[in-house]
């Protein structure tokens, strides 16, 4: 892509091809001989990291699509079946879901890098605008992908986001109908989102080709912002940049793997483990973390249309950046004022992200308005003004001068550390879990779970006892519809033998049919059958339980959470704490109190529970001491029952958890070795260039 190549393959077959289609020459001149500035730092490896992430998303996505069913009634279940039954389906899903977040982490670093070093300036305007287009496409793709699992947050996120378009005067409503393919978000919406979610990544790949093409025409920018002048200023792309990028990718994969194997739900929302319900809006609708700054801007503007314009404007304004910032000096390294404002801007973005996750009330609204003004002021006032009044420091004559002068200088690592910290902050700010179970109730006490931590395993005894508690107590009202009897004999579960699972299944009556006479009939359960639900449908469950349908328990420990709050959610990332769900379920089971505290009124037919949001729960106290007999001598107390049944329900929510953590350890050992190998290879390759 950088001019005609003089590359000639030595193999006659390749020569034959090359004369007819010079693709090898193109590859050679673009990715081997291509001169890359020798002073690039590690922030420049994010281009390669992004390419890697795009490839990863397309690869995992194509395989997931082979197993996914885009139908409003089946989508949620099909995703659960991918996780439970498809070979390494849990891995594919985690890689894809976490991959979306990692993709955005990388793209934000990449964009801030461009902002800091002035990579959008002449002659790289088109390169920058192509990048903004990729970013917009990524946002659309990410949003549509989040809709596909068809959980509560998927459904309501889709409702809120599609309704943004209704703010457009005159044509807004028709556009929204067109997006929905109906009168509300429903099956047609899911179908078209699936189709577009499959299409857009390939469009992104196409624009990425243009982006790389434009990059190779204009040449890479570099930390000093001076164009390469002589051969001494550059090194060939391969092996120098290739090996450096490999090391960068390996390090990034460590972070990626941390989420995949140890914190797969950290960046998600517990509400999305509840199937979509068009009749119930979750209390807090929060988009994925990567949209939060823009969501905060939307909410801080009190007028609907102005809010929507502000939100989209916050992204579109990036397209005009090359002309808003007219300063001749590219790199902020030589712009003392621009550098400071850049960091203020980064903090503004992170704080906006934090506010986007908070309820829109009181101080949060005011702070949101102030920060929205700051966001736009950076582009519309600060940058144009700085171009006029700032006196930049002299830039070096050439890249080699800069490299020689820098030997021993320590400014770059400091800046790098600061960016790293800021980035980590933004990640955490966005990852605040939904406050599903937190409204006006006590925080559940923490427990010691055998399955927590990087080497956690289920306690077999607890699983077996929990199954007994479920069967004898919970099962009279609550279903367990994603769990099959065969699962009881699978590795990582309660460790029953196949025969025991079959015997267990045969105690159940399962409806089957129709038979040859066209009648439905009942037969004994088989291992392939799923736990039968106690009620034929949700309405029956509702009618039999005073208007509140008992939820299915298959996913309950992942579908419930409580707000950890600042700063706990930051520590949680390092300690791998993700047992909010089990803590809540266990606390709820023990949280019934006969004596209602002062000031709380419990409606008739409800019961007081200390940990239930709003305290009035329709479920009567389910467990009492001695209710279920244990054969293994464990204490038959409510505390023990709660602990056992919660452990069992954690297993039903994630039957492959042990496999996940085991594989995670192996992957980490491999990645650390691989990254080390890459690091020393890189050192060797670059030894002569420094």
């Amino acid at each position, binding site marked *: 892509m950088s001019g005609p190549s003089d590359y000639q393959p030595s193999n006659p077959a390749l020569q034959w091809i090359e004369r007819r289609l010079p693709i090898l020459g193109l590859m050679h001149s673009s990715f081997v001989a291509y001169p890359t500035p020798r002073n690039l730092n590690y922030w420049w490896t994010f281009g390669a990291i992004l390419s890697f992430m795009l490839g990863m998303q397309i690869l995992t996505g194509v395989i997931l699509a082979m197993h996914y069913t885009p139908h409003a009634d089946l989508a949620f279940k099909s995703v659960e079946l991918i996780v439970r039954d498809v070979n390494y389906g849990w891995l594919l899903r985690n890689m894809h879901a976490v991959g979306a977040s990692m993709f955005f982490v990388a793209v934000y670093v990449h964009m801030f890098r461009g902002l800091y070093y002035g990579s959008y300036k002449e002659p790289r305007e088109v390169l920058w605008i192509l990048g903004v287009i990729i970013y917009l496409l990524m946002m659309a793709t990410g949003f549509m992908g989040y809709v596909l699992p068809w959980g509560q947050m998927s459904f309501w996120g889709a*409702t809120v986001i599609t309704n943004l378009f209704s703010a457009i005067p005159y044509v807004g409503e028709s556009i929204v109908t067109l997006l929905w393919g109906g009168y509300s978000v429903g099956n047609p919406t899911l179908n078209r989102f699936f189709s577009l979610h499959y299409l857009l990544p390939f469009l992104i790949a196409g624009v990425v080709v243009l982006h790389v093409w434009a990059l190779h025409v204009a040449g890479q920018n570099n930390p000093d912002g001076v164009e390469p002048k002589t051969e001494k200023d550059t090194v060939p792309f391969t092996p120098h940049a290739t090996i450096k990028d490999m090391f960068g990718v390996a390090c990034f994969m460590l972070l990626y793997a941390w989420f995949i194997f140890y914190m797969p739900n950290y960046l998600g929302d517990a509400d999305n483990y509840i199937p979509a319900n068009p009749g119930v809006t979750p209390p807090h609708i929060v988009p994925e973390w990567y949209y939060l700054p823009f969501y905060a801007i939307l909410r801080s503007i009190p007028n609907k249309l102005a809010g929507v314009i502000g939100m989209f404007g916050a992204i579109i304004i990036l397209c005009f950046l090359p002309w808003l910032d007219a300063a001749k000096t590219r790199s902020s390294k030589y712009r003392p004022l621009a550098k400071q404002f850049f960091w203020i801007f980064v903090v503004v973005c992170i704080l906006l992200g934090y506010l986007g996750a908070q309820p829109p009330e009181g101080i949060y609204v005011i702070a949101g308005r102030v920060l929205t003004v700051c966001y736009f002021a950076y582009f519309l006032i600060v940058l144009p003004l700085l171009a006029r009044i700032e006196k930049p420091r002299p830039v070096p004559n050439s890249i080699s001068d800069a490299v020689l002068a820098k030997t021993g200088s320590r400014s770059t690592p400091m800046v790098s550390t600061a960016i790293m910290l800021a980035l980590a902050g933004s990640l955490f700010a966005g990852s605040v879990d939904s406050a599903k179970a937190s409204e006006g109730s006590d925080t559940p006490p923490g427990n010691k779970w055998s399955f927590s931590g990087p080497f956690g395993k289920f306690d077999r005894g607890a699983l077996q006892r929990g199954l007994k508690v479920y069967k004898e107590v919970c099962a009279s009202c609550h279903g367990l519809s994603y769990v099959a009897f065969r699962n009881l004999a699978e590795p990582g579960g309660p460790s029953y033998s196949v025969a025991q699972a079959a015997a267990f299944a045969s105690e159940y009556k399962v409806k089957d049919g129709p038979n040859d006479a066209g009648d439905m009939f009942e037969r004994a359960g088989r291992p392939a059958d799923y736990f039968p639900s106690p009620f034929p449908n949700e309405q029956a469950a509702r009618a039999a339980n005073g208007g509140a349908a008992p939820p299915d328990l298959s996913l309950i420990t992942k579908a419930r959470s409580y707000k950890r709050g600042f700063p706990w959610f930051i520590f949680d990332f390092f300690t791998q704490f993700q047992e909010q769900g089990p803590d809540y379920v266990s606390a709820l089971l023990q949280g019934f109190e006969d004596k209602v505290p002062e000031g709380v009124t419990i409606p008739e037919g409800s019961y007081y529970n200390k940990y239930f949001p709003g305290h009035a729960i329709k479920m009567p106290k389910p467990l009492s001491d001695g209710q279920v007999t244990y054969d293994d001598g464990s204490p038959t107390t409510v505390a023990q029952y709660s602990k056992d049944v919660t452990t069992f329900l954690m297993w039903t929510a994630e039957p492959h958890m042990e496999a996940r953590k085991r594989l995670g350890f192996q992957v980490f050992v491999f990645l650390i070795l691989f990254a080390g190998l890459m690091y020393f290879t890189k050192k060797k390759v670059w030894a002569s260039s420094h």
Partner: protein
Amino acid sequence: MNPDASTIAAGAPIEVDLSPVAEGQDIKVFWRGKPIYISHRTKKQIDEARAVNVASLPDPQSDEARVKSGHEQWLVVIGICTHLGCIPIAHEGNYDGFFCPCHGSQYDSSGRIRQGPAPANLPVPPYQFVSDTKIQIG
């Protein structure tokens, strides 16, 4: 990409029997995938809705224009917040009407926006009374 024929057909008018809804209660029915709130308003709610100065409202509309005359006790509105499409909760908020949990919009007992970011009143779907205790929506 507009709605297909079956979607349009499924959106045909529906009839709702109002006789089981006692005063002060409300029911939620689905029409075209949208929740429709049918409230049997109390005298107090009607009086509150009519006492307000219409010109002072963000989206001025009198209560008389939002219900069918002769059936003032029945309020029929599409239960979708005009801000960003969440479902407001009935009998909550400061105006004896609806409260949207997403972004805090509050509607009064006539479904009119009184406070919060929503720009318009809860829309009234097309409906008529087939008899005193039965309405047809659509």
